[in-house]
Structures are given as structure tokens and as C-alpha cells.
């Protein structure tokens, strides 16, 4: 891959890249199948290090993994709703991330979960926080010769919960009009928010970490009002466009609705309801 530079691309699940190649979306000379690289196929978890998901691990393996189901249900939410089963058998969250679509369906979940992208090149390994990984619509932050190896998730904290929601006009097989990932940690009484991360998708050129909304929620007591206010603040960062999948007004409005609903579910999970 190194020798082909920007003319080389990695093939993981292939559910996006093959379609893009047929549509002449980019000019490449080399497609490298990375599914056979063992490191990219590992799904591992330790209590101290958390979860590591190889870039070539298909969604179905992620959401059927009992550790992921137990400790990272938000990741299940996200991986479970990419495409149909045929796509989930192939598609990877690594590919999803590298594809860097503004509406990429796992990315806000990854951002909320404080995931980091682990990247390898001849220069060695480096880690990039997922919120910094996408740099523009369809553009990731990988340099020529760099390969996404895995995505690392910190171990879940006590009294924490997370959820991912998207809105689509159909019930499956669709691209998000808007999507939202949230993660929060409560105090030991499970009443006050100690930390929060809210991430939005399809409402800007890249998936976004809604910093202001996240910070607003910290220290607040859980209530309909506080969640509503947080959602309203999240809407402020949204700068969507109108396209065939949705309008500006609709998308901003959906950020509010989805943020509120995702927060409620995350709170339930944090409380262990």
C-alpha cells in the first residue's frame, strides 16, 4: 500500500468501497484486502484496557459478541442497524469510520464512547480520537501509507450508560437523516450527571462532538427539563444542509428529538433499569 500512496485503498467489508468504485467515485490502482491480516480481525476485551475492535471485524461479530452486548450496548445499537443482515455480515465499523460519511451510522456512537482509532504505518502506531478522525465529507484523517488497525474503547465506568439512535424514513436499509450517540455517567445516587458525551451525525460535514451540550449536562440532576435543555443546546451546533434525505429544519429538529430520547435511554441504562 505504501508504494501506491493515494492510489491504494484498503478493502475490509467492501460494502461501501465496491459501490463507490463502480460509480467511479475515485481513481485507484490497488485495492488491498485487509481481512486476512490477523490484527485487523481481533475483537478483544480486558477489564483494564477495555475493548479493541479490529478494523476488519464485521458488524455481526460485534453485536453478537457477549462482552459487547454486556458492556457496550451502545455499540450494539449502532452495529445492528447498518444495512440488512447481508451487509452486517461484511460491513465493518473500521470501514464505516474510514468512509467518513457525515451520516456514518456508527461514528457518533464511537465518539460518545470515547473511542480512539489506532493507525499503523511504517512510522509505527498512532492513536486518533474518533471525533478528530473525520476531516470532511468522505475524507478521513489517514495519511498516505497509513492503515486503520483497530478501534479502542475505554472500559465502561460504573453507573454509566450510552445509547445510539438514528432517524430514517424506512425501518431498515436506509441512510440516517440524523443520528445521535450519547454516553453519560451518573453519580453513585444515580441522580446527577458526572460526565457526558453527546455526538451528532448527518448534521454537519463530519460527525460532531456536541461539546457545549455535553458540558451543560454535567453536574445537572436528571430531569425531563435538564434533558430537554441539553437537547436544545445540542441543536445549536448542528449545521446541516438540505438534501434529498432531509431538510435543514427537519434535521435540526431531529437532533433535539433524538438527543432527548437517546439521553433518556442512556440514563435508564446507567441506572440499570
Amino acid at each position, binding site marked *: 500500500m505504501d508504494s501506491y500512496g493515494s492510489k491504494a485503498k484498503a478493502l475490509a467489508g467492501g460494502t461501501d468501497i465496491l*459501490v463507490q468504485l463502480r460509480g467511479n467515485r475515485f481513481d485507484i490502482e490497488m485495492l488491498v484486502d485487509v481481512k486476512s491480516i490477523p490484527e485487523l480481525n481481533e475483537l478483544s476485551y480486558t477489564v483494564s484496557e477495555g475493548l479493541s475492535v479490529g478494523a476488519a471485524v464485521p458488524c455481526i461479530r460485534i453485536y453478537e459478541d457477549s462482552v459487547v452486548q454486556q458492556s457496550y450496548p451502545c455499540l450494539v445499537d449502532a452495529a445492528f442497524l447498518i444495512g440488512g443482515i*447481508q451487509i452486517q455480515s461484511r460491513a465493518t465499523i473500521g470501514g464505516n469510520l474510514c468512509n467518513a460519511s457525515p451520516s456514518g451510522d456508527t461514528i457518533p456512537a464511537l465518539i460518545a464512547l470515547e473511542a480512539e482509532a489506532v493507525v499503523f504505518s511504517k512510522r509505527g502506531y498512532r492513536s486518533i480520537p474518533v471525533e478528530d478522525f473525520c476531516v470532511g465529507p468522505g475524507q478521513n484523517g489517514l495519511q498516505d501509507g497509513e492503515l486503520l488497525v483497530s478501534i479502542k474503547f475505554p472500559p465502561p465506568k460504573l453507573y454509566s450508560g450510552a445509547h445510539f439512535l438514528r432517524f430514517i424514513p424506512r425501518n*431498515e436499509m436506509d441512510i440516517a437523516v440524523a443520528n445521535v450517540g450519547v454516553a453519560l455517567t451518573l453519580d453513585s445516587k444515580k441522580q446527577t450527571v458526572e460526565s457526558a458525551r453527546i455526538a451528532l451525525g448527518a448534521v454537519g460535514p463530519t460527525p460532531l462532538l456536541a461539546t457545549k451540550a455535553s458540558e451543560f449536562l454535567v453536574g445537572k440532576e436528571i430531569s425531563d427539563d435538564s434533558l430537554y435543555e441539553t437537547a436544545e443546546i445540542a441543536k445549536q451546533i448542528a449545521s446541516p444542509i438540505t438534501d434529498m434525505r432531509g431538510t435543514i429544519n427537519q434535521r435540526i429538529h431531529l437532533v433535539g428529538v433524538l438527543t432527548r430520547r437517546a439521553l433518556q435511554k442512556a440514563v435508564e441504562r446507567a441506572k440499570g433499569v
Partner: protein
Amino acid sequence: MNEKIHVKTKINDNDVEFLCEARQSLLEVLRDVLDMTGTKEGCNDGNCGACTVILDGQIVDSCLVLAVEVSGKTITTIEGIAGVDKLHPIQQAFLEQAALQCGICTPGFIVASKALLDREPNVSEGRIRHWLAGNLCRCTGYDKIVRAVMAAQENTK
């Protein structure tokens, strides 16, 4: 791009070898190289499921798999679902429940349904609908297809 690559694989329990171009999909090779036209093309971009095959135990859209990727793997297509002298219970149920009209999506639905019942012998209507959401049918409204899969499930017990 035009150089041919030699691939060895296993299709419907038979060892198969073929030559293909790097850019050819598994679907193209099945249909145009191996003349196994039971697997259908509806969209060529993974959104209709007509080309569903089972690859190493998982259902995939064969249009989104490069033929070179199946080297050393195991594939089941619609041609490999029935026994020599007997239909698979799902195929029988599709006939009895009138679960096909034009029939172009039928191979994809049968392959996907078989994979589901092989994994999960007790599935609900909701689970069937979710599992089959990647397969489009334009003729039936899915009603009789879902009923056929439920009937096949009963018959396999």
C-alpha cells in the same frame, strides 16, 4: 485489470476453480463464468438482496464480494439448497404458501431464510421481518413470504 486470477473455492459442496478478473464480483462470476444464474442481480449495490449467497456460514450480497475474496471459502447458492430428490422445507413452504409471484427475488429470500432457520430454529414474525429486511420483494408485500418462513419453521421441527 484484465489479467485473470485463478481461484479455488467450494460451491454447494463441490470444489470449484475459476479464472476471474480482479474487478469481477462473486455475482458476476457465478452468473457469467460458472453459468449459475439462479443467483439474481437486482441492483448490484447491496440494496436488494436478490444475489444473496451464504459465504462461510454468513449471508452476504454476492455483488459486494469480489470473486478473488472467496478463495478457500465455502459458498452455498440457491442451486445448493434442495436435496437431490427433495426440496428444502423452505422451498416447499414457499410453494405451498404462494410466497412468490414473479420469482426473481425468491432465490435470495430462500437462501437468506435458510441461513436464519439454520441459526435460530425458533424465530418470531418480527425476527423474520428484521432478518429479511435486506431482501426486497416488489410483488408480494412480504405477507406470504413471512408466513412461508414461519410454516417452514414448523415443518422442520
